[in-house]
């Protein structure tokens, strides 16, 4: 424990580096925010035509669905993890040697970098939030209580997203060339997180699959808590499920890293 605390200034500096290097890419990152805004707009148009003037589908109003999609996409963008991409490209180029040769733990460094990059993104919310509201739709939480639960759920979702990014990144130590896998992964994750279609519209068997995967805990769970669980369910059970995934993924990430770091291969001379 004492060692961890003596490393606190080191981690703080890594957070700072994370912020600074994210800011170095501000243009690119500004455009990917725009892309999310466009995606929200397209989803709204699509679902409006799906509803075809009906007041509600499966007991859920168009308004609820649009707010869901707006929040899910906005939240997904600002809570995204770049660790998968970062670790994978560092491993491929052999640059991961730098992080591995440091006197502080690899996982800690990665988490600090992630926090830094998220902090660097947050100010963009000032522009992105009103835009998303405009092209999509927004409303307050179902109640103050749901609002508070949403905050907790969002924090848990962020931890799950980061852990999954870390695990995907670590898998690069085995596969080395995983561009194909990474692309499929991000599509599958986005879909099962409910960013394109709310999980309440999933047909029975697909919904069962979605419920078994960790991805719903990244996006669907917090947003539907915000909306007061329009398709039913207990908010505490939903939070409990998220906690389960946090613990499970954390344990898995530790174990996985333990394996990886014994079979590290550094590419290139």
């Amino acid at each position, binding site marked *: 424990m004492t060692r961890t605390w003596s490393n606190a200034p080191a981690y703080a500096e890594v957070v700072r*580096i994370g912020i600074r290097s994210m800011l170095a890419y501000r243009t690119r990152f500004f455009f990917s925010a725009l892309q999310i805004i466009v995606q929200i707009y397209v989803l709204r148009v699509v679902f409006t035509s799906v509803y075809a003037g009906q007041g509600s589908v499966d007991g859920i109003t168009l308004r609820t669905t649009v707010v869901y999609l707006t929040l899910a996409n906005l939240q997904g963008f600002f809570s995204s993890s770049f660790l998968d991409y970062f670790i994978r490209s560092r491993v491929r180029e052999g640059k991961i040697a730098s992080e591995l040769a440091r*006197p502080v733990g690899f996982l800690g460094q990665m988490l600090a970098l992630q926090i830094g990059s998220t902090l660097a993104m947050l100010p963009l919310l000032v522009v992105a939030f009103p835009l998303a509201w405009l092209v999509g739709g927004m409303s307050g939480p179902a109640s103050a209580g749901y609002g508070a639960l949403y905050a907790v759920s969002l924090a848990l979702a962020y931890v799950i997203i980061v852990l999954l990014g870390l695990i995907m990144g670590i898998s690069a130590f085995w596969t080395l060339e995983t561009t194909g896998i990474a692309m499929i992964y991000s599509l599958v994750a986005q879909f099962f997180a409910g960013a394109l279609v709310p999980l309440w519209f999933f047909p029975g068997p697909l919904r069962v699959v979605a419920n078994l995967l960790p991805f719903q805990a990244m996006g669907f769970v917090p947003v539907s808590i915000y909306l007061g669980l329009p398709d039913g369910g207990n908010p505490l059970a939903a939070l409990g499920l998220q906690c389960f995934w946090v613990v499970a993924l954390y344990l898995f990430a530790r174990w996985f890293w333990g394996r990886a770091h014994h079979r590290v291969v550094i590419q290139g001379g």
Partner: protein
Amino acid sequence: MPIITADNLVKEFRLPKRYGGPLGGLRTLFTPAYTVKRAVDGVSFTVDEGELVGYLGPNGAGKSTTIKMLTGILVPTSGMLEVAGLVPWERREENALRIGVVFGQRSQLWWDLPLIDSLRLVGKLYRVPAERYRRNLDRFTELLGLGAFLQTPVRQLSLGQRMRGDLAAAMLYEPPLLYLDEPTVGLDVLAKERMRSFIAEVNREHGTTIILTTHDLADVEKLCRRIIFIDQGKVLYDGPVQRLKEQFAPWRELVVQLVPDGGELPPDELFDLPGVEVARREGAKVWLRFDPKLIPAPRLIAQVTARCPVSDLAIVEPELAGVVRGIYAEREAALTP
């Protein structure tokens, strides 16, 4: 007391059979087929505190792989390694505090950020007290001439500037051990000279133990007393630079400036003596390669001067580069059937 002890180190790489296509990565993941490459094959050596050792060998000999094991980022397949009483890969973080590493081919600096940001990060990661950090930063800024580009993003630096930045990053916390993997690669003559005097000074003034790999043998001749020469993962030679020359290039050369005798230059056959051959000839200048065991230098000189008029004589030691070239050539010949 040795600070580094390597005993029978072996590192094998398992190369999975790769499949192409967009899902190739996935197939690779689930196929057990692989080939084995022995990059380091039973390497043993010890290094004493304060030594500056040249770690040499042709491309693919296993030098970088050895360095990676020394830093603890690679786990050897078998064998033992102890660095300052620690097994590097078992206590990776503790080991990291005592070593500085420069991989000339890749940088530890943050590509998009000003050089100073990476240096500050190093200061924090290695827990350098603020005051000592200041002092060392000032010192390295002066010694390595970093002042002009401390605020420049690393991606905008020239190779030589980046390399100096990397060296500063590796030494900011004054590690007692330094591994330099090709620190002079791609540098111009002047930059190399500066790099060398910097390395020499660090070794001399601070007693830093240094292992240096390079393909520029001038680095070795200027800096190292001892070299370890490896080839195909095996140690071929370990000892003083001088003895490598004696062992692999037992000859010396006598350079003779001839005086034309009545307009005629003597033919090569004139120097047909046991243990002597004409290595090179440029008009009136002849390089005679001789084996001092068969014909001592004074006798050769006496014989030559007796046979023809001579205006100048010089005995040259074989250059390390020439010796190493000879070793590589022999190896190539042995490898091609």
